[in-house]
């Protein structure tokens, strides 16, 4: 029962306690019953689950994670390059 997808809030209807969220060009209404009043704002990224907004996605943490992944890739790339250079250096066929 955990399928939940990130969406962006594009509209808020305070009277009906409902927000309109956008998931890649598909918009849907979602209930705000599980969020504190005023907590959700237009432009927020939220998790949507069976018609309700369940929480707000922390943008800073998300960006932080993505940054860490890029660093890991860079580090691995560097290692690969170094290994290639070493292999090349140590290659018995290499001319002196």
């Amino acid at each position: 029962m955990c399928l939940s997808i990130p969406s962006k809030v594009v509209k808020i209807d305070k009277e009906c306690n409902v927000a309109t969220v956008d998931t890649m060009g598909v918009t849907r209404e979602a209930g705000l019953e599980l969020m504190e009043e005023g907590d959700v704002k237009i432009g927020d990224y939220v998790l949507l689950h069976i018609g309700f907004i369940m929480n707000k996605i922390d943008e800073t943490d998300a960006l932080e994670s993505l940054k860490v992944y890029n660093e890991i890739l860079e580090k691995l790339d560097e290692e690969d390059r170094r290994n290639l250079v070493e292999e090349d250096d140590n290659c018995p066929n290499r001319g002196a």
Partner: protein
Amino acid sequence: MNKQITLAMGNGGEENNELITKIFYKAFKNEILEKSEDAAVIHNGELAFSTDSFTVNPLFFPGGDIGKLAICGTCNDLAMMGAKPKYLTCSVIIEEGFATRELEKIVRSMKKELEDNGAVVVSGDTKVVPRGSVDKIFINTTGIGVIEKQGISSNNISKEDVILVSRDLGRHGATIFAAREGIELTSDLQSDCASLTHQVQALIKAGVNITALRDATRGGVSAVLNEWAKQSKICIEVNEDTIPVSEEVEGICEMLGFEAVNLANEGTFVLAIKKDDEQKTLDILHSFQNSNNAVKIGNVSDAYLGKVLLLSSYGTKRFLDTPTGELLPRIC
């Protein structure tokens, strides 16, 4: 088999195949039927003959309506056997109380599509049944086409062939789900409902070495690939990141837990053509508006006969199975 017919048996996937095999094929046993092609090839390979019934709900959806669907559906089945659609029949079962204006709209739609295909309706039947006996209107069309390229068959695919799709997947299925009551979504998504006759004619005219064609209706591309793998006794290996899916379809799939390869299409077809003709085929398809993003998605091997393999871009693989069950949104 179940004691009662369930909705899943109409899904175009595993249960549907079981129903057809165990009840209908068993009774109507004959060589032509057992070939399980999109249309029957009859009369010494000269004619293609096909039938289809249409029960889509809602009747009018972005990109089309039941009338357009009824003509495209049958004409496309004929086109998939390399035939030019010529003569169609049209039978309707209408619920008492159905709005005449809506019926006219539907029939006008059918007329437009017939003209596009160069086909005519030569016979038909009309029934009106009491309220509640059918859901608004059901349409059946049966068609005969003249085969312009013989030998197109889902039973002859081999390692010499490559697998292409004519456009991005899942539009019709996604649109219907979005338009249906009970699931409120708003998007610009439109069904891909269209006739494929012109593309097929162009390919035939250009002398492309076509092995097989099939439009990916119920059960989507995954049903077609699985049928081909079983019928031709081959393995189809699909590169997951080449499968074209539009952002809006992806959005609906994310939201409802579907996979685009399992969603129905009504104007998208899968091709198995000889390797050497890949570029030629793509060039021809790209010249048509509704196949301008046609792309190669896979190859044929003998790794796992009768199965379809999905290869990820990070080095893993899994089987892509024929869809089962009613296509309910996955909640979990």
